[in-house]
């Protein structure tokens, strides 16, 4: 039977754990709100970009000689995967599910005989994939948007991807990230960035805008050549934003659970503590009484 002192120590240690987890939960909640606002604020640009791309793509596809970023290199031998995870732990299954999906994708591609290259964002993905696929990692980024995620952060990554593409280092590029659905639910999403698939957005735009016939200045191809790298940055930025919101959501839920568990544990320990205390009192009484009787 544990002594009263031991129990007391346990209780106070669980209490301080609970304090920490509930503080983390509140921090995550406020960060989540900020991340959501940011994602909200970034939406207009992405929407309009999508609309412009759609009308441009419709025009260029007819002529059949679009830039490589859209039409692809014609091969799909080398795949580049951008894996977006977090820098810090204690956020439930957030990183685990990203890594699991990445591993699945890598193995699938490799079994098809493709070459895979990895670009990881966030410390966790790198740490967990390094052992198995260390040789595949071409670049890692850490502390992305530590304080506040800015477009410049995304641009750095996109520029790297573009320079790899220009150097002919890969044919197809996809990004794997957690898409934010709600604070308790994040969906691991694989999205192809290069070659850029326009169809889905084109349909949306077609219904939204009654297909205006645009003039282009300079010509379509030149605009597209400038627009596509921009679009890549935007897509990376969006993935980063989604991932940041997901991370905070996952952390909030995880910390909420932890706080609740700590509370349950405190209750149980307190009951044990009280029982033990009563047992001691009873024991002492018995000792006194039986001592008195013996006299």
């Amino acid at each position, binding site marked *: 039977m544990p002594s009263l002192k031991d129990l007391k120590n346990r209780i106070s240690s669980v209490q301080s754990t609970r304090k920490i987890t509930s503080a983390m939960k509140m921090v995550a909640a406020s960060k989540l709100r900020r991340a959501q606002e*940011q994602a909200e*604020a*970034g939406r*207009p*640009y992405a929407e*309009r*970009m999508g*609309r*412009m791309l759609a*009308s*441009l793509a419709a025009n260029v596809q007819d002529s059949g000689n679009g830039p490589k970023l859209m039409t692809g290199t014609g091969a799909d031998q080398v795949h580049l995967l951008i894996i977006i995870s977090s820098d810090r732990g204690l956020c439930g299954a957030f990183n685990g599910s990203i890594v699991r999906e990445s591993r699945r994708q890598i193995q699938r591609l490799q079994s098809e005989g493709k070459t895979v290259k990895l670009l990881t964002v966030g410390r966790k993905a790198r740490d967990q994939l390094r052992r198995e696929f260390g040789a595949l990692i071409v670049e890692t980024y850490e502390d992305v948007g530590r304080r506040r995620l*800015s*477009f410049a952060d*995304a641009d750095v990554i996109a520029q790297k991807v573009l*320079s790899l593409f220009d150097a002919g280092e890969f044919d197809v590029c996809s990004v794997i990230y957690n898409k934010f659905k709600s604070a308790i639910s994040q969906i691991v999403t694989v999205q192809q960035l290069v070659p850029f698939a326009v169809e889905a957005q084109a349909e949306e735009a077609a219904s939204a*805008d009654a297909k*205006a*016939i*645009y*003039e*282009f*200045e*300079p010509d379509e191809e*030149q*605009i597209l050549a*400038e*627009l596509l790298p*921009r679009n890549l*940055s*935007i897509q990376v*930025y969006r993935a980063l934003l989604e991932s940041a919101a997901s991370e905070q959501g996952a952390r909030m839920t995880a910390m909420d659970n932890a706080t609740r568990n700590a509370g349950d544990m405190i209750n149980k320990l307190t009951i044990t503590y009280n029982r033990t205390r009563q047992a001691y009192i009873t024991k002492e009484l018995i000792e006194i009484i039986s001592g008195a009787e013996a006299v």
Partner: protein
Amino acid sequence: MADKVEFELVSPEKLLTSQPVDMVVVPGSEGDFGVLAGHSPLISTVRPGVIDVYEGDRVVDRVFVAGGFAEVTETRCTVLAEEAIPVADIDRGKVEQDIRDLGEDLEDAKSDDEKARVEAKLAVARAKLDAAGATAY
């Protein structure tokens, strides 16, 4: 109102302005163009320069953009800007300093790639200085 055009200025991080105005003049890469209501649909790239917003005959707003894209329809003018700051907020001293720094970077630049990147930045900074100078008189 039929004779107003809906002007939107958007940066990747947020929607900066969205307001009905009489006319906007956008620095297109092939020359400035003014947008009035009923302009024919147009998509253009934007060079670093100043967007003038007109209300009646007066310029009510001047915004510097560091390049981007413009989409014009009959009722709307959307500018997707990479960087946008009101001309009044440009700090001349800082821009001049930037130009000096970039000039040094250009000399240090080794590869052609790097050189091109610094030159692009330099062009933006020079345009910014021009924009600031234009309001000075």
